[in-house]
């Protein structure tokens, strides 16, 4: 195993994270805990946070959709001219409030704490991943 790859693995293993029911595994990655805050119907915009770990192949997150928002904006990293957000083999990706991120726009229902709604994530190579958007707080 190349030493650089081994170093990445060791680093990933050291990262603490909570694994729960909101993990979605494909053959090449694991999507952890997509969530947003409890907000009232009509909220113009809110962050959609998640993490993607154990990435085993380069890919790009191109789009996302949920029935509780008119649209989800996919914001690439600064300087990234390709569409979507880059996933790099062996490197965990955190989508939060800054940097590459997802934002819900046009929230059409009150998002109560603890509820969960469908969320589809579209990747260039992995295709669509059916996940859930939980109304929660960080785990």
């Amino acid at each position: 195993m190349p030493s650089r790859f081994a170093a990445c693995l060791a680093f990933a293993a050291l990262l603490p994270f909570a694994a729960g029911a909101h993990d979605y595994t494909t053959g090449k990655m694991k999507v952890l805990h997509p969530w947003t805050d409890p907000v009232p119907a009509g909220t113009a915009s809110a962050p959609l946070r998640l993490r993607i770990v154990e990435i085993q192949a380069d890919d790009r997150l191109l789009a996302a959709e949920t029935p509780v928002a008119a649209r989800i904006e996919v914001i690439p990293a600064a300087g990234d001219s390709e569409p979507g957000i880059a996933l790099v083999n062996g490197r965990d990706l955190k989508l939060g409030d800054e940097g590459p991120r997802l934002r819900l726009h046009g929230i059409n229902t009150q998002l109560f704490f603890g509820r969960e709604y469908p969320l589809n994530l579209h990747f260039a190579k992995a295709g669509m991943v059916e996940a859930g958007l939980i109304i929660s707080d960080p785990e």
Partner: protein
Amino acid sequence: MQHSFKPNVFRVAVTAAFGVAAAVAATSVSAQTRDQGRYVVGDFHNHTTCSDGQISVQKLVNKSVDTYGLDWFILAGHGGGGTRNCTLADDETVFTPSSNPFVPGQGPSTTWADSIGIGRVKGDRAAEGYMFRWQSTQEFEYPLLEAMAEAKQKPIFIGLESVVAGHEHSDTAVIAGQLPASGRGNADPGAQWEYCFDRADTDLSRGADNQWDCTVPGGARNEFLDARGRKLTGAQDSGTLGHLKTVEGVRWLQAKYPTSSYYIPAHLERAGVFNPAGSNGFNIEHLRNFNNAGPTVAFGFEGGPGHQASSNRSYGAGATGGGTYGGAGYYTGKLGGVWDALLGEGRNWWIFNNSDYHSRGSFGPDDVRSTSDQYPGEFNRSHVLAKTGGKPLTPQAVVDGMRSGNAYYVNGDLIDRLAFVACRATGGNDRDIKLAQAAVLRAATLNEGFADSRCAQQGEKLVINAGEDVVIFAALRDPEGANLSPYTIPNPSLLQVGINQPLNMPVLDHVDLISGLVTGYISPDSPLYAGAAPGGVGGAQDSPNATNPSTAVRATFSAANWSATPGGYKLITLRAPKVKASQYIRLRGSNIPAAVPNETDAAGNPLVDTLANNITVTPDAVACADPTAAAANVNCLTHLPVQGAGRRLDVDVEAFTDLWFYSNPIYVEVRGGTVVAGVK
């Protein structure tokens, strides 16, 4: 203080009603001197806001044991920890013991910092207000459960859904110390296990004042313990090293709590096959390793995962097998697959199901509909034989019952009674058979086990001479009336084949008797020991090492060839002549006949549940056009995904369409043949 609990009154009433028949059967067939035990229903995989659930401990317990009538309840919750105080009642209507009164303005999503105060939070992340599970278990959740157990007079105690080093999740518990016969108990051993072996528990404080040390008696990895935390951590939490850590955790349980703990991998297909560089699923070699390291602790897996009301009935496309099969994981649902391979070794490896309750998805916790989970006891129900010697039910009796393998699991109350027995038949004549049938039916009627030295039941082995006949009996009840489905529409799966049956009134269609040969344990050194079973995902096929090709449906019983008796009981009898090889037999049954499109194949095997999305449900357009009526009439099914002019079958409605039950096996060991080594 008494922490053991009275059986319900059902036994007394039925004994009186069937007293004459029982006396005949008892004197003619069986001495009936042993404690036959009684089947009790429970759940050991569920969540509150202490991990990633939606409601408090109190509300979850109330729903489970009051609304859905469970006889026993084991609170789980993920390892690791969290910031929320799940011991705060949701509102003033939720029953809570006097030890934990409702606090206006606070609830289960209130943080520990805002409730008990950050100064009482311990461990390495105390400054963040993050409480590790070991602390919440030890100091907050267990004491509350003890008070709930006392109030409800049922065994209500605590376990864990561990975030597993090297894998995804497992259900585990140490019951030693919990609900003692007198005085106050504790959950200290389980809390220590969580600190020592859970991948998500990154605390290195040694449990603060506990000052735990995670050395494993006879362990193989003690030299790698972290100097400060005295536990395996960091790189030892992932991949192959992570698996070795988990084997150490099983070894710890076996050494310290061999009869008062369990370790049962949960939804073990969900994260795909094992990943030596990550934390994904379990392959057969990992299950074999667990059973070898802890034969009285690691004795099974969650054959029926929870989350059955979620999209595609629990699993995503990344799961082995590409999804669930009639609600069962691929390892259980695939005939001749991983479970049958383990049984083919003669291992004590049993299956259970659970709710994995977190929330009701897009609905509130008191809505009858769900796009995520059903409550414990609402849909998935594990029936476990508990022997109490006539005394009240205890946690030990529940765990002993789980370990015995005398258990079966059911979806949607498809059946609620089962007596499954295999008997030596040497010299047996028709009269003997009839008497035995009566005795088995009596056992089912009383919801009891079956004690006869000439017979074996689930989890046991019947030892015979080569060439003897074996007679197999099963008595089961398809309960009359409605189940807990809130929907009364015609079952959309059955409508495809012209059967009009309300979704809340399922009828048992058939029962399959399945058998497979036992060929003995495989050595860890053998090339046959390891192998993945991806179930075709990504085009990858199952290793033959994770299969048992001798497994087959030997007989199918339905209204055409079972004996129906009043009250919904079905009686099955099959004589297996001149048995020459050691083997196991097990049952499964369904409300879905063979060859129903998108549900079953021509042989009656369940198909992957994603196919149910192909079935269109047309709701009552008139009722749904009126918003008021729509709110009251759940049959509008407006939560199903739109597809064309109708909606596609999914979430909780899909769960209630195809219902299954699975028994655990009875082994038949032929003298001079292969020994069924996993069952003593």
